[in-house]
């Protein structure tokens, strides 16, 4: 068994540097690598390009790196709910590239799977297609999209083992598995780290081969963005 465990979040982010490209798992605030984001915020590195479906909220998630102006460019599909983000974007301090959510997911997977480019119908005829090759398949126009990779990918799982195998909970899976595939160095933080052999080999979502470093996270806030409930009758 190849052991991927590192003993602290500081060790986990070793090697991060200014101007790098990062991928960060999560959808909204669900399944985001809270511990890694905290350490990146502490690290003070700057000029980052962050690939993440969303950009957090003002005081949580990627909002923490935005507050400190560590991010030069965001690549996302949806970036609402963040006033500081809006300010930086409108003032031109922050570069933003918006990508259809499905193309973002597939481009990350492609980056991890050694597929340099693929055709998708999403975005044809819109500004997303600008400068991209268009080709018809089965009578329908498609655009050529390229793979995405990152210097580091930061993902968050529910359980993980010492071999780097990951299991996600509920909808906290989202972008984490594809980003784990696409990181040159993938750092996984988990709510519960167990010895290799404890997880069922058939029930692993992200095989350890995609994970370079794994650590036991702590103090998870797991904030809820939209608390919607129904009343008991």
């Amino acid at each position, binding site marked *: 068994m190849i052991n991927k465990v590192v003993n602290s979040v500081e060790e986990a982010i070793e090697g991060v540097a200014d101007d790098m490209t990062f991928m960060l798992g999560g*959808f*909204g*605030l*669900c*399944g985001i690598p809270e511990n890694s984001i905290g350490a990146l915020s502490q690290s003070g590195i700057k000029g980052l390009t962050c690939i993440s*479906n969303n950009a957090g909220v003002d005081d949580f998630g990627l909002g923490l790196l935005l507050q400190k102006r560590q991010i030069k460019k965001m690549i*996302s*599909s*949806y*970036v*609402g709910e963040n006033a500081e983000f*809006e300010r930086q*974007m*409108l003032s031109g301090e922050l570069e*933003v590239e*918006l990508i*259809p*959510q*499905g*193309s*973002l*997911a*597939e481009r*990350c*997977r492609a980056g991890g799977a050694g597929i340099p480019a693929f055709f*998708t*119908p*999403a*975005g*044809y*005829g*819109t*500004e*997303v297609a600008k400068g991209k090759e268009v080709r018809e398949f089965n009578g329908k126009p498609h655009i050529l999209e390229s793979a995405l990779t990152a210097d580091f990918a930061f993902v968050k799982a*529910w359980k993980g083992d010492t071999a780097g195998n990951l299991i*996600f*909970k*509920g*909808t*906290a*899976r*989202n*972008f*984490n*598995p*594809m980003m784990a595939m696409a990181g040159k160095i993938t750092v996984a933080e988990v709510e519960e780290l167990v010895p290799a052999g404890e997880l069922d080999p058939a029930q692993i*979502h992200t095989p350890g081969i995609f994970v370079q470093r794994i650590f036991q996270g702590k103090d998870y806030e*797991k*904030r*809820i*963005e*939209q*608390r*919607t*409930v*129904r*009343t*008991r009758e």
Partner: protein
Amino acid sequence: MALDKNGIAQRIAQELQNGFYVNLGIGIPTLVANYIPQGIDVEFQSENGVLGMGPFPFEGEEDSDLINAGKQTITTMAGAVFFDSATSFSMIRGQHVQLTVLGAMEVAQNGDIANWKIPGKMVKGMGGAMDLVASAENIIVAMMHTNKKGESKILKKCSLPLTGVGCVTKVVTNLSVLEVVDGSFKLLERAPGVSIEEIKSATEGDLIIEGEIPEMKL
């Protein structure tokens, strides 16, 4: 009388067919889930990674690891599945989802839709909308017929940046049910008590009005 949001959702729910997998966008579309007709089994897909979405949780049972694409806390039904975003959009792009309902700022008579960007305003992003409209074969737009200034959102040509081209099949508004046919909006139904004249005056795009136009049955 023009419909309210719930009325629009109720009318769209009549489009559900047994065995449909359905993706509901944020806003009015979400309300469709409250009006599933008796005897119709459908499953709701949320593009953040769940199939078989149920109602909101009871208070105190919210799970931060269980949300929909609107970031709202949800529950799941028996037979539900969780999956990653790539698999989710494989379902969408691969046309395994039979019906997509989403909101719009503008719809054009050639089926174009604009719902993600207003030049000069803060752009939040298209989320999964571009994938949904480019892929689905059956796209129903749920929206108000006119904007807050009273201007028609049912147009000859979209003025805003597009989300997708030639993709909308039906539009259900507070005033009418419209079908996109051969480059025009064919008027299928009127909201209860709404006259054809009212619809005409609220519609900038070309309308096809053939024969008796029935009122919606809600």
